[in-house]
């Protein structure tokens, strides 16, 4: 195994491939950092460039883009409170407040280092436990997926501190919005109003960009003319090293290990990616924290949880991709296409027939992670300078980039109108005090829940008890009930207390 890994490093560290990867990571970071541009777009746009390259160079470039873009989202999540990618949603919860407190540099440093550690942890998981873990995931059917989706949806209640009814409503509305388009199983067109552009439903990118980026622009517009703080951007603290102490680093190790395990575990399951794992890791970190009241106010624990988990999803998502040929999310689906273009057929036989190439992929992941750390550390000072740009100049330019990102999905002006629509909805959420994060979770998990429910019922010939009698699905459904009951009990206790503890404000909630 180590011989093969050394061979892989030798291939990746050749001058040509190393330079390609450096450019790939840098471009990926930019795509991740700009709201509206994602890892999917970075890989899709660069895929044709790999045609002329050999398999090792082509795949290494794609992996570099993947790693860079997944991590790059933390930059805008912290500096602008706008997640550059779905995988950085939870980073905004504490990264944004840290920036407002003048700790932007520290938040970026923490995010960069723990993104790196998350990536490395997931590569270790990929290399050592891939085959056995993938077998477990392979045994999951619609019953299990439905139960996992329901359990994950019940976490919405945890995200709904404040008004539980509003939070759950946001999740249900997100689920409802995901039902637009062709229905699963029977292909009935739903809620399209005869508009063919709605047949495929709304893209997650347009929903995310609208709800976060466009809503943020509108929100800034509200106070732009009469800024409360006189319009002065908060000054970042002077940065030394990565901006945090060794004691702070060591204190976050348990949080990072837990978040990495969540990221890897969720990354392995097809259909749920880093977009979900960062939020679940954030919730877990808050639950386990000694100071949960600090979450949402700017604590490094929140940034560590989100950034470790989302980058740990990289290796996690590669496990079913390489061992079974099953892409876990849109990024790995494009990666699968990229592998096949170069004559590589992922599956159990890949490890036997093309073992050197598999280890080249592992080496490319490790080198990309190191390049990401170096480039982001080097770029940290440049990113901080972004703070000096007044918001009334920066945000309109970002809106234009969001419009370009939406247009780039399918070259349709319709998608740009969609981001405006979701932007207005996001702003309405802010004004109504409805959290945005449950809406996104509902939108992401809704289709999986509905499709699995209908397929599961088909398999069990309409018998609903199949979901309870299946051991894995029954366990998850029981956990879902416990999760709701626990949250309701917490809510009841909070309302009986003198002041309802309510530290978590999400998605720009007022």
């Amino acid at each position, binding site marked *: 195994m180590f011989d093969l890994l050394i061979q892989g490093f030798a291939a990746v560290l050749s001058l040509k491939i190393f330079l390609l990867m450096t450019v790939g990571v840098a471009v990926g970071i930019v795509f991740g950092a700009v709201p509206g541009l994602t890892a999917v777009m970075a890989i899709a746009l660069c895929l044709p460039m790999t045609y002329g390259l050999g398999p090792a160079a082509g795949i290494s470039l794609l992996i570099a883009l993947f790693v860079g873009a997944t991590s790059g989202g933390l930059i805008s999540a912290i500096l602008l409170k706008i997640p550059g990618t779905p995988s950085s949603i939870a980073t905004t919860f504490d990264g944004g407040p840290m920036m407002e407190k003048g700790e932007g540099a520290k938040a970026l440093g923490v995010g960069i280092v723990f993104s790196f550690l998350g990536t490395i942890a997931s590569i270790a998981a990929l290399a050592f436990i891939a085959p056995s873990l993938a077998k477990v995931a392979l045994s999951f059917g619609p019953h299990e997926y439905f139960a996992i989706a329901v359990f994950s949806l019940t976490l919405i209640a945890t995200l709904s501190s404040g008004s539980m009814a509003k939070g759950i*409503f946001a999740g249900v509305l997100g689920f409802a919005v995901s039902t637009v388009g062709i229905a699963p199983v029977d292909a009935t067109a739903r809620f399209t109003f005869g508009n063919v552009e709605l047949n495929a439903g709304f893209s997650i990118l347009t929903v995310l960009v609208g709800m976060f980026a466009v809503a943020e622009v509108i929100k800034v517009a509200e106070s732009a003319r009469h800024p409360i703080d006189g319009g002065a951007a908060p000054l970042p603290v002077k940065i030394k090293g990565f901006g945090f102490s060794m004691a702070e680093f060591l204190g976050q190790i348990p949080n990072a290990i837990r978040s990495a395990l969540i990221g890897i575990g969720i990354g392995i399951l097809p259909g749920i990616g880093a977009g979900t794992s960062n939020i679940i890791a954030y919730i877990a970190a808050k639950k386990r924290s000694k100071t949960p009241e600090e979450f949402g106010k700017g604590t490094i624990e929140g940034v560590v949880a989100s950034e470790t988990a989302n980058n740990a999803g990289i290796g996690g998502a590669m496990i079913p991709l390489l061992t079974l040929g099953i892409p876990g999310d849109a990024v790995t689906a494009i990666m699968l296409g990229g592998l096949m273009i170069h004559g590589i057929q992922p599956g159990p036989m890949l490890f036997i027939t093309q073992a050197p190439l598999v280890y080249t992929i592992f080496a490319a992941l490790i080198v990309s992670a190191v390049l990401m750390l170096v480039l982001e550390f080097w770029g940290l000072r440049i990113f901080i300078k972004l703070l000096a740009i007044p918001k009334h100049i920066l945000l309109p330019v970002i809106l*234009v980039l969001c419009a370009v990102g939406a247009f780039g999905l399918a070259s349709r002006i319709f998608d740009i109108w969609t981001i405006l629509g979701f932007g207005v909805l996001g702003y309405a959420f802010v004004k109504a005090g*409805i959290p945005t994060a449950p809406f996104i979770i509902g939108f992401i998990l809704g289709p999986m829940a509905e499709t699995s429910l209908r397929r599961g019922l088909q398999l069990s010939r309409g018998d609903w008890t199949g979901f309870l009698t299946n051991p894995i699905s029954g366990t998850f459904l029981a956990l879902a009930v416990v999760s709701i009951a626990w949250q309701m009990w917490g809510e009841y206790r909070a309302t009986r207390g003198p002041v309802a503890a309510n530290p978590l404000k999400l998605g720009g909630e007022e």
Partner: protein
Amino acid sequence: MRLKDVIVGTVMAGAGIFYLRMAAALPERDGVDAGTVPGILAWMMIALGLIELVGALRRPHASEAETRAATSGLVTVGLTLLLIAGFIAALRPLGFPIATSIYLFLQFLVLTPKSASRSVPLYAGLAVASSVLIFATFRYAFDLLLPAGPLVAWLN
């Protein structure tokens, strides 16, 4: 009673009723069909809206200051939404470089704080430079065919 929360609760329940009506119009089949899950979601939305409404009716009044803060800045918000809508509508006829330059210039002016000075030449320069840079990057580096409008003969 808090008027804002009453309105929010009513809108939540209203959205559920609207969604339920649309779900009911879907073609029916035996067992679980395309309308089943939307129907369940709609009833949940109605129930949650009613819960919020009842809670709002029990809560104390909002202070006048809170009400005033909630309505300030709405003119700028309205102007921003109009500008974004105008920008999107103008993308095809005017093309990306021209529509973006105009949008950015006007949006810079609208969002500039009253206390800050407005430099029209600087804003115009920034608007044109940003739109040209974005267009060139995506058009020529990433082969994204952004609408060029009347400039199509020169830019493609």
